[in-house]
């Protein structure tokens, strides 16, 4: 049976937040974290941002049906 993909609204929000997080990963280290010369500055920020994006990928892809 074939039917069009129905997008659940929350997955759309999660997807939209990825570019937002990525823009933050450009802006924040060059502004707010510019003078934080330690591991808890840009290093931690980029790590946390990526971990969030990977989590979003895991969660959204779990909503996929197993098409063959």
């Amino acid at each position, binding site marked *: 049976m074939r039917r069009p993909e129905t997008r659940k609204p929350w997955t759309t929000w999660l997807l939209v937040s990825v570019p937002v997080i990525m823009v933050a990963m450009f802006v924040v280290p060059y502004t707010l974290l510019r003078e934080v010369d330690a591991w808890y500055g840009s290093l931690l920020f980029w790590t946390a941002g990526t971990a969030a994006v990977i989590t*979003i*990928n895991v969660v959204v892809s779990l909503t*996929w*049906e197993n098409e*063959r």
Partner: protein
Amino acid sequence: MSPGWIWTGVAIYVAVALVAAVWSRVGRAADMSDYFLGGRRMGGFVSAMSYSATTYSAFMMIGLAGLTYAGGVGALGFELLYLCGVTLVLVFGPRFWRVGKAYGYVTPTEMIGHRYGSAAAGTTTALASFVFLLPYAAVQLAGVGYLLSGMTGGAISFTAGTLVALVLAVVFAMIAGLRSVAWTDSLQSAVMMISATLVVIVVISQLGGVGSFLDSLSSDHPGALTVPGTGFFSFSTFLALTLPWIFFSISNPQVSQRLFTPGSMRDLRRMLIGFLIFGFVYTFVAVFWGFAARLEFPELEAADSATPTLLASDLVPAPLAIIVMIGVLAACVSTIDSIMLTLSSMVSRDVVGAARRSSERAQLMIGKLVIPVIGVLAYWFAHLQLDLIAVLSVSASAGLLVMVPPIVGAFFWRRGTAAGVITSVLVAGALVLVLEFSQVSLLGQGSGIWGLVVAVTIFVSVSLATSAPHERAAEFIRTSARRRSP
């Protein structure tokens, strides 16, 4: 570093990989899908390992480590932003996969040709891919050649190193097409990951553990943990490096072709998530390796010698250094053989196959024959001057950005036209080449940024001025969004 030990290590690696390659054969491939896409039945785990090995090349442990050495933590940001960009697979993966199954596409450029109702569009994008990917493959060969000859003080020559990598890549590709590539990739990504992780753990523990490691960076190397830090990673440099890589998963055909290969959506998901986790770990390993080199050898002139210097130092036991070198060789071979496979499939499907009607068998034969030819071309490129190679490799990732508007348009914009694809790819592609060769920087921004801006502008404006293949577009988009039966 005794060449005898290195050759022994290489021989063991080759023997194991050949066994994997031969074992992966399931009889003679019947057609293009079978050979180049593993029959569209590739499992999730092998696909994830293969995607990782294909993506992560010699660049990571040599180039990225060198970038970290020279510029600090900005290198981490750049590489992690690339990884975040792989989220594009979440959006485009299922769509590529569905249309691949429905229409029998073997290459992403064939998909473009069919979607826009123009074989010429497919051929143009295939040729652009060729122009930009061949130097990228060549720089892998050059990187491995320099590493092996550097580590052995020339006992293994540059030529010998590049030849070994090349021959391995050709053999792994030809034995069973994508299947042998994917299985050798899986083996190689295991070697890459294990060797790199082990060596970083060893080095950091010798430097006093992670805590003291990070503290030393803060105190002894001001700017190493910030951007722009010591000044290397100005915002425009950061943007110019990062932007082409963010779109890598759809702009680079050797990885976008992989979106046609999983057997099911579950396998596609495993490929994506497996790769994200691999990439996350491997990125940290490569960056910390670069930082370790910075701490231990702060006065190196060339950033690219960070890895060889650290490997040859007392911090790394010789057997481990050899395993890491083999890991870098494996990273290089796994990237090159995938590029060669993809380019061969494009030549036979989108260039020769588009020019004259040929059977699947004829296309497959041509595809196989082209593999060593591409290998020879890459080898020849690798032996040109170094300066030229560096320029070409940067323009490669920037140049491939011109593939992005046609691909995005294919799935999300009915109004895109073949004329838009062809003109945007040719003009923007040429612009990137010109900017890179002349080393001109417009408004202080990188070639890739201009390439993308010009490509989007031309694609949109020319499309609006020409007629679109409405029916084909509608059907294609509907197919890409329509769930197949589980």
